[in-house]
C-alpha cells in the first residue's frame, strides 16, 4: 500500500518509467500509453489515492510542478476543434546525427531537433475542451474538498526553471511557505475536516494571478467566478463527453510558455486565425494551463461529502437506513420551516424541490423536474437574499439570479457562439446538472423589457418548461438539454411558468421580520448538522424509485374516483404533478417505492397547497374591485 501511495505522490516518475521502457524498446507501438493509463486508473480507483493528487481547484497553479499529475474538478464549457499532433516523431541530434523516436502524447511541445520529414512521424488526433471550475460551486464545497486533499510533498518539488514563466519565477520567494506542506499533508489524511485554514491562506495569496487574469476573459458562465480554467487535451473517446458535463480530470499539467499566443513567433501568413481567436485558443499557459487527460471521472454530483464511488455500489444506499433519512428529514424540515418564517408546508415543498432532478425524458417531456414558485415572499429585510444564503449552505452548486429589469435587459443568459474568436461565449444558464437556480422575481419592477430582456425571459421559460437551453449559434440555434432546479421567489404568482406554486404564509409579523431573520443568521447551524443536511439532499436525489403494480392500480382508481366526483377538480396536469410530488415525497423519506401512505400524504399536501392558492386568489380578486 505504501508503495502505491508513493507512486501516486510521484506520478511523474511513474509516467517517465513508462516513457523510458517505451523508448528503450524504441517502439511507439508497444502500447505503453495503454499500460500507463491502465496503471493510473488502477491507482486512482483507490479511495485514498486520489486525494493525494493535487487538485487545480485547491492549489494555486504556481505551486504545481509542470508535467506532474494533477486533477481538476470542472465543467466542459466549450469544445474546440480537434487538432492533429505528432503522435510519434523522430529527433535528430545536430552533432551526432543520432535519430531517436519519441512520443508526442501528453505533451504540448516536442523535443529539440525534430525531423519534420521523417517517415516515422505518426500523426494522431486529439480533442481540446475548454473547462472551467463548476459554476456556482458554493464555498463549503470548496472548503471541504480542499481539506480532504493532500498536497504533493515539496520534496518532489523540483523547479524546472527553463520551462517556467518569469511571473512564476517571481513567486519563487514563496517557496519557504511550501516547506510546511509535507507536514500538513499527512495530517489532513487523518483529519478530514477543518484544517484548511493555513492552506486557504496560500490559495488566497497569489492575488497577482487574479489581477493578471482580468485582462483576459476566462469565459466563466457566472459573473464573479474565480479559479483557473483549463484547456484539457483528450486523447481518446472524446465523443463520449458532452458539453456541460462535470468531470474530475486526472492529467498531466503543462505550463509551457511556448504555448502562449503572444510569445509565438509565427509569421502572419502562416496564421489562419484572427488575433482574437488566437488569444482565446492559446491563452498564456500561466493563466490557462493545459491539462493532458489521462483519465476522467464523470461527476454525477459535486458534493464532496458523498463519495462518488459510493454511487456504484448499492451498499451505501442501504447503509443509510430509512429511519435515519427520515430523522434527518424531520430536522431539515424544522430548520427550513424556521427559515420560511414558520411555514411548514412551504418547507415541505422546498425539500421536494431540492431533491428533484430530471431522471428521464420522454420524447420532449422531461420527467422529474419540479420547479417551485414560492410566492408571497416578504419584500422587507431582503428576505429573498437571506433565503438564498440558506440554500447556498445546503446545495453544492447554486446561483441567485436577481430578476431586476436591468439584469434582465443586460445579462447574457444564453451562451452564444462568437465566430470571431471561434468560441462559445458562456451565459448564466450554462450550468452543471442539479445546480440550484434561484430566480428572485421580487427584484423585478415595472418597466420595459428590450429585445434582450424578452429573449432572456423566453430562455428562462424554456428552461423551466422543457429543461433545455437553446444556445445561440447566430445562424441557427442548438438545443442543449439541462437539469437545473429552478426556484422562483416572487410576491404574486410568478410571470414564469412553474410546476408548482406555493404561497408563503409567514407566521411572523412583518415588524418582527428583521429581528427574526437576523436571529437565524446569528445562530447558524453547526457544520456537522449542515453536513448531515447536505449529505441527505444529495443522497435522496440518487435513489432509485419504482411503483408496484398494486399501488399503480390504487393510484389509477384514485384518479378515476376523483374525476368522477368532480371532473374539474383534477386535470391531467394536476395528476402529473401529483405523481411527481408522490415520487419526491417517497424519496425524501428514503423510500424507493411508492407506498399508499406516501400517496395519501402527497395528496394531502397538494390539497393544502391548492386550497391555499385558491384562497389567495379569492383574496386578490376580492380586493380588486
Amino acid at each position, binding site marked *: 500500500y505504501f508503495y502505491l501511495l508513493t507512486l501516486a505522490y510521484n506520478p511523474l516518475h511513474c509516467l517517465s518509467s513508462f516513457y523510458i521502457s517505451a523508448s528503450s524498446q524504441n517502439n511507439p507501438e508497444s502500447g505503453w500509453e495503454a499500460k500507463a493509463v491502465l496503471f493510473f486508473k488502477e491507482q486512482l480507483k483507490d479511495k485514498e489515492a486520489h486525494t493525494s493528487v493535487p487538485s487545480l481547484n485547491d492549489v494555486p497553479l504556481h505551486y504545481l510542478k509542470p508535467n506532474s499529475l494533477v486533477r481538476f474538478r470542472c465543467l466542459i464549457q466549450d469544445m474546440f476543434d480537434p487538432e492533429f499532433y505528432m503522435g510519434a516523431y523522430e529527433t535528430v541530434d545536430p552533432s551526432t546525427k543520432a535519430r531517436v523516436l519519441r512520443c508526442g502524447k501528453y505533451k504540448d511541445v516536442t523535443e529539440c531537433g525534430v525531423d519534420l520529414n521523417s517517415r516515422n512521424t505518426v500523426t494522431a488526433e486529439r480533442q481540446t475542451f475548454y473547462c472551467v471550475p463548476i459554476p456556482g460551486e458554493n464555498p463549503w464545497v470548496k472548503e471541504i474538498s480542499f481539506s480532504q486533499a493532500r498536497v504533493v510533498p515539496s520534496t518532489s518539488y523540483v523547479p524546472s526553471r527553463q520551462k517556467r514563466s518569469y511571473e512564476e519565477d517571481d513567486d519563487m520567494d514563496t517557496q519557504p511557505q511550501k516547506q510546511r506542506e509535507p507536514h500538513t499533508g499527512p495530517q489532513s489524511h487523518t483529519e478530514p475536516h477543518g484544517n484548511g485554514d493555513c492552506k486557504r491562506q496560500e490559495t488566497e495569496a497569489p492575488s497577482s494571478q487574479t489581477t493578471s487574469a482580468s485582462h483576459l476573459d476566462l469565459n466563466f458562465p457566472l459573473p464573479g467566478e474565480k479559479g483557473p480554467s483549463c484547456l484539457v487535451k483528450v486523447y481518446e473517446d472524446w465523443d463520449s463527453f458532452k458539453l456541460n458535463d462535470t468531470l474530475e480530470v486526472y492529467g498531466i499539467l503543462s505550463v509551457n510558455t511556448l504555448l502562449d499566443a503572444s510569445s509565438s513567433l509565427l509569421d502572419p501568413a502562416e496564421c489562419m486565425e484572427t488575433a482574437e481567436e488566437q488569444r482565446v485558443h492559446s491563452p498564456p499557459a500561466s493563466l490557462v494551463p493545459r491539462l493532458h487527460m489521462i483519465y476522467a471521472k464523470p461527476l454525477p454530483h459535486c458534493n464532496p461529502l458523498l463519495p462518488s464511488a459510493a454511487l456504484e455500489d448499492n451498499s451505501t444506499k442501504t447503509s443509510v437506513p430509512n429511519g435515519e433519512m427520515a430523522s434527518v428529514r424531520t430536522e431539515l424540515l424544522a430548520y427550513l420551516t424556521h427559515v420560511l418564517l414558520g411555514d411548514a408546508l412551504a418547507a415541505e415543498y422546498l425539500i421536494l424541490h431540492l431533491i428533484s432532478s430530471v431522471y428521464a425524458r420522454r420524447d420532449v417531456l422531461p420527467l422529474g423536474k419540479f420547479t417551485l414558485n414560492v410566492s408571497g415572499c416578504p419584500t422587507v429585510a431582503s428576505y429573498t437574499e437571506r433565503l438564498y444564503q440558506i440554500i447556498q449552505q445546503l446545495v453544492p452548486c447554486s446561483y441567485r439570479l436577481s430578476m431586476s429589469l436591468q439584469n434582465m435587459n443586460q445579462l447574457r443568459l444564453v451562451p452564444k457562439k462568437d465566430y470571431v474568436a471561434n468560441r462559445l461565449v458562456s451565459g448564466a444558464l450554462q450550468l452543471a446538472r442539479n445546480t440550484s437556480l434561484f430566480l428572485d422575481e421580487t427584484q423585478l419592477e415595472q418597466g420595459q423589457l428590450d429585445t434582450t430582456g424578452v429573449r432572456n425571459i423566453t430562455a428562462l421559460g424554456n428552461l423551466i418548461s422543457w429543461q433545455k437551453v437553446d444556445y445561440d449559434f447566430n445562424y441557427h440555434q442548438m438545443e442543449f438539454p439541462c437539469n437545473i432546479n429552478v426556484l422562483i421567489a416572487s410576491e404574486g404568482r410568478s410571470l414564469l411558468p412553474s410546476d408548482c406554486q406555493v404561497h408563503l404564509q409567514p407566521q411572523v409579523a412583518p415588524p418582527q421580520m428583521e429581528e427574526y431573520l437576523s436571529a437565524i443568521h446569528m445562530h447558524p447551524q453547526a457544520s456537522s448538522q449542515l453536513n448531515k443536511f447536505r449529505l441527505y439532499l444529495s443522497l435522496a436525489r440518487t435513489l432509485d424509485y419504482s411503483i408496484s403494480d398494486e399501488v399503480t392500480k390504487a393510484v389509477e382508481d384514485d*384518479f378515476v374516483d376523483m374525476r368522477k366526483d368532480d371532473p374539474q377538480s383534477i386535470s391531467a396536469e394536476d395528476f402529473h404533478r401529483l405523481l411527481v410530488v408522490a415520487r419526491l415525497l417517497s424519496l425524501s423519506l428514503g423510500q424507493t417505492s411508492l407506498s399508499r401512505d406516501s400517496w395519501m400524504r402527497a395528496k394531502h399536501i397538494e390539497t393544502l397547497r391548492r386550497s391555499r392558492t385558491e384562497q389567495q386568489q379569492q383574496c386578490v380578486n376580492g380586493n380588486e374591485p
Partner: protein
Amino acid sequence: MSSPTSTPGRKRARTDNPSTPSNDAATSPPSQRRRGQDSSTGELPPMPTSPATDMLSPAVPQDTSLFSSPRHSVLPSEVDMSSPLMYGTPSSRVEGTPRSGVRGTPARQRPDLGSVRKAPQVDLHSDLPNDDGAAVSDGQNAGQRLVIWGTDVNVGTCKEKFQRFLQRFIDPNSTEDENAGLDLNEPLYMQKLEEISVVGDPVLNVNCGHVQSFDAELYRQLICYPQEVIPTFDMAVNELFFERFPDSILEHQIQVRPYNALKTRNMRSLNPEDIDQLITISGMVIRTSQLIPEMQEAFFQCQVCAYNTRVEVDRGRIAEPAVCRNCNTTHSLALIHNRSVFSDKQMIKVQESPEDMPAGQTPHTTVVYAHNDLVDKVQPGDRVNITGIYRAVPMRVNPRQSNVKSVYKTHIDAIHFRKTDEKRLHRLDEEAEQKLFTEDRVQTLKELAAKPDVYERLSSALAPSIYEHEDIKKGILLQLFGGTRKDFSQTGRGNFRAEINILLCGDPGTSKSQLLQYVFNLVPRGQYTSGKGSSAVGLTAYVMKDPETRQLVLQTGALVLSDNGICCIDEFDKMSDNTRSVLHEVMEQQTLSIAKAGIICQLNARTSILAAANPVESQWNPKKTTIENIQLPHTLLSRFDLIFLMLDPQDEAYDRRLAHHLVSLYYQSEEQLEEEFLDMTVLKDYIAYARTYINPRLNEEASQALIEAYVDMRKIGSGRGMVSAYPRQLESLIRLAEAHAKVRFSDKVETIDVEEAKRLHREALKQSATDPRTGFVDISILTTGMSATARKRKEEVAQALKKLIQAKGKTPAMKYQQLFDDLRGQSETAITKELFEEALRALADEDYLTVTGKTVRLLA
C-alpha cells in the same frame, strides 16, 4: 529551379513526363487504342535522352518551339520540372494546368492543388532507391511500370482512363439539375465540353460518383492522390478538348473540378488518414476573410546589372538569391513587387451543419482556403458542400526555438464549392438534403411499410408521451408526410399546395405545446415560434446591414427557414393581426413577398403550419362555435386542412386509461420501454425516405372516390340551403389521401387512402365545425366565420329591430340603451348586446339609420 528555365518550364508542362512511354505523350488525345503504360514498344522509337521529342505530336506542332533548350541538362531534375505532375512540388509550385500549346491558351496555376509533396516518378519494378525522391528511371525500358513517387498512379494510364471516362460516360438516370438540358443518352461530359466551348467558362465539374461507377480504380486514385491525379485529368481534358474544338478560345485552360467525393461527408469524421486526400464535406460558412494576395513567384532584379530572375514560392517562403548570376554581385537582388506573380486566396471558416451533429456537443469548424476564382463564391451563412484536399501543416519551426509545438494546423484547399441552399430559392432541392440511407435501413423501412397496420403504428409512435388523441396524431402524421407536389404554373394556377396545415385548439394544458415541441424536434427543418413573441418580421424576413461589409443582407424569418419543413406556431391566437396577415399568402400560395428597404422579392415558404390556439375565454365554451371560441378570422381558418379540438373528454374509461398512461410514464419498466417499438430515429428516417422517394399519384378509382366524396359533402348542405363544401375541401382531401399513400410507401393513391382522408377530414370537421346551436356539421362556420343558422338569426333580429323602430313612429333619434332594452323586452329569445349591435350595423348598412355614440338616428 531558379534562373530563366523556370518560365519556359511552366510552358513546357505539356511535355508530360518524358519518362513515360513516349507514345503516350506523343499521340495523346483520342487515341484510346493504346493501352498505355506497359507499352514500351510504342510507335515512336525510344528517345531516352531527349524528351523533347515527345512533344512532336502532330496535334501540337507549335509545341516544339517551346521545348527547347534546357532539356539536355541533368535528366532527373529536368524530368522533375517538365512533368505535369509537379504541381506543387516545392521547387515548382507555379506549375499550372498543362497548357497544351494549342492556340496558346494559357494555363492557369492551381494553387488549390499546391502542396509540399515531391512527386517524381518512379519505376515500380526498378530497385532504385527512391528515398531521395529523385530517382527516375528512364521510362523506355520495356515492361516497366512508371508511377509517381509515393503513389501508384501512372500518368499515362490515368490520363487515358479519364479520357475514356469523359468520352463514354452516360448516366441516363441523372437527376442533377446541372445536367438539365443535356441529352442523357449521350456521353455526359462530352456535352459539357461542348458547353465549355460555347460558353467559354473553362471549368469542368466532374461528379466523383460518376467516376466511381465508371472506373472504381480511377476513383480510388483520385481520392487518394488528388494532387497528382487532378493535374493529369486537366491534361487529359485539355488534350481532348482542343482536339475536338481546336478553334475555341478560352481564357485559360480547362480545369477539372471533381466534386461529391464520397470519402468523407461529415466534418466530425475527418481524421489523420484523410490528410492529402480528396474529401467532400458539408457545412455552413461562418466567416470569410478578405482577399489575400498570395505570392506565387517572386521577381528579383539585380540592382547592379538589372538582371531579372524569378523565384518560386516554396511553402510560403522565398529563397532570395544571394548572388546575381549575371554579374556575380552578392546581395544585389531586390524584390520587385509589381512584377511578381500573385494569386487570390481567401480563408473561409466552415462549421458543421447542425443536422450532422451528435447531441450535446458543439459544432466543429474547419478552415478552408479558396483560390483564384473560388474566392468570394460563398458568403457567411451559406450551406455548402466543399470538395477539396485536406491538409495538415506542421507549425512553423522557428530556427531560434529549439523545440516546437507538436500540433499541426489543418485546412482544406477547396477545389469545388456547391451551395446547398442556393437552389432552394428556385427549385425544390430534395437531393441536397437527401439523407443517405443504407441498404439495411431502406430494407427495414420497407419492411415496416409492408405491415398492414403501419399507419397505426406510426401514429402511435408519434409523441408517445401524449395520451390518446389518435386522430390528431394521425393528422399530424399525414402532415409530416405531406401531399404530392404538383405544378400547374402552365395553366396559370401556380403551384398547388402540397403541405397540410393543421390547427389545434383546445383548453390550456391539454399538451398542445408538447405536441408542437415534439413535431419541431422530429422534423429536420422545423421552426418553433410562439405567437406571443413573434412579429411579422420575425416570421418573414428582414433586412439587416452587415456590420462588416456594410452590405444589406436579407435575414430570413421562421417561415422561410422552415421551407420544406414544418413551422410550429404556438399561441396562434395571441398573434397580432398584422403578423397573422402574412400567413395568408404563405398558407395558400406558399410564397412570401417582401418589399422593403429597396428589396422586392418573393421567397419560397413551402412550409406546413402546425398551429395551436387557446380559446379566448381560457376555457373552451362548448356552446360556441370554433370561430367564436378562438376569435380567429375565418379567412385564415379556411386555410387549415384540419382543425382539431383537444378537449378533455371527461368520461371514466378515458380517465382510467389516462391515469394508467401517466403512471407508467413516471414508472418506466423495462417491458414498457421495449413496447416503444418505433424510436424517433426510425420514424424520422421513415418520413424522410417517404418524402424523398414516394410521389403517389391518384389512380382512376381514387379519383372517382374523391369526386363522390366531394359531391356528397356538397349534398349534405344543399338540403338545408347552404354550401357545405368548397373546392378547398376537395384539395384538402386530395392532399390527405396522397399523404396516406406515402405512409404506405405506395406510388398510387387508392381508395383506402381516400377513405382514410375522408374519415379524418370528417372527424376534424365534426370537432371543429359543428354548429353548437343545431348540432349539425356546418362548414360555413369555418369558411365564412358564421354558421348558417347564426346568419339567419342575425337577419331575424335586424328585421325585428326595424319593426320596433318603425313601430315607434316619427322619432328621429333614440337612446341606444333604451332601444336595446325595448328589443330585449319584445323578443322572446335572449338577445345579447353583440347581437343587437350586429342588427344595428345591418340596418346601418341598409342606410336605414346611423349610430353616433349613444344615440341612434334614423336616416331619411
